[in-house]
């Protein structure tokens, strides 16, 4: 395993092979994304969305967990108040993306903003973890992020369609364990993010605070609260 040199990291760059490599790194996730997307299509059909609305939502919102929670709020006819609630719910469930993209600054920071921001729009849990792990093992090719994001986007849009049309076939992802896809994939990635005990202290604090937050607060706040606590702890732990 290559050792990362965070203080003198390689400058970020773009490449065509990086697009392919980024796509390849998402492979372990694809079965899970297909099932999740198809299940979302089924739920959208039950909620009365048209196929065009489903494709539009998957295409431009592109956030599985947020969309799933938003459909709980979705009640037609959609009054202005409901629309505002939907936007707020989406932002809250996606709040972890604020932290995820913040963590990309040391890697992508040297690139021009007009190149980075469009790439950031492809951020999902999977895009981010593929990129973070790649960068943690010393890589600097920003195309990894775009390659991973484009594949996940295409599948998120396409796989919802059979789910919408076929209905109940994919309605119960829990039966195959796919509802735990995210923590399981994150566990696999965590092994790759391992860089010694200093960060592990911050990670442990993150886990403990997140667990406490999940008991005390509704929704997805536990990720943001736990991660901020762990990150602050990591900032104060010295290894030199």
């Amino acid at each position, binding site marked *: 395993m290559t050792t990362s040199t965070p203080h003198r990291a390689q400058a970020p760059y773009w490449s065509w092979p990086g697009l392919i490599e980024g796509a390849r790194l998402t492979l*372990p996730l694809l079965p*899970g994304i297909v099932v999740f997307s198809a299940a979302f299509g089924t739920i959208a059909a039950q909620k009365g969305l*048209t196929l065009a*609305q489903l494709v539009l*939502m998957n295409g*431009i*919102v592109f*956030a599985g967990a947020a969309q799933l929670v938003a459909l709980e709020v*979705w009640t037609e*006819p*959609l*009054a202005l108040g409901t*629309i505002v609630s939907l*936007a707020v719910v*989406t*932002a809250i469930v*996606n*709040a*972890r*993306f*604020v*932290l995820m*993209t*913040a*963590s990309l*600054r*040391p890697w992508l*920071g040297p690139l021009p903003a007009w190149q980075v*921001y469009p790439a950031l729009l492809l951020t999902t*849990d999977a895009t981010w*973890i593929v990129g973070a792990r790649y960068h*943690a093992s010393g890589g600097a090719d920003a195309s990894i992020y775009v390659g991973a994001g484009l594949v996940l986007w295409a599948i998120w849009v396409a796989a919802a369609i059979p789910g919408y049309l076929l209905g109940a076939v994919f309605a119960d992802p829990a039966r*195959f*364990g*796919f509802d*735990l896809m995210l923590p*399981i*994939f*994150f*566990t*696999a*990635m965590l*092994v*790759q*993010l*391992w860089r010694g005990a200093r*960060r*592990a202290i*911050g990670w442990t604090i*993150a*886990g403990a605070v*997140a667990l406490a937050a*999940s008991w005390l607060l509704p929704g997805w706040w536990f990720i943001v609260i*736990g*991660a901020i606590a*762990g*990150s602050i702890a*990591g*900032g*104060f732990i010295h290894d030199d």
Partner: protein
Amino acid sequence: MTTDLVSGPVAAILAMALAACFTRVSGYWLMGHVPMTLRVRRMLETLPGAIVVATIVPIVAKAGVPGLVGIAITFAAMLLLRRNEFAAVALGLTAVGLARAAGL
């Protein structure tokens, strides 16, 4: 007024998309306006793992025994199978399915 121009569902989807865009760019933007001191750099270096752990622990705690079994198998597979994440994820999911089928 906007709901006359575009139908309610489309307006709702556009609002959700704007909210999602905001979460995807704001953290990165913010970090461009914070001086990159050693402490900030250390915080950002700890952040990816902290996000991952803060996601895993509560979800798995809520999922009970099948969740714990799945995570343990995935972790063990990553260490034993030379960091082959495809196999580790497949084994982890299979473990969850089997544990649930066994009624754990």
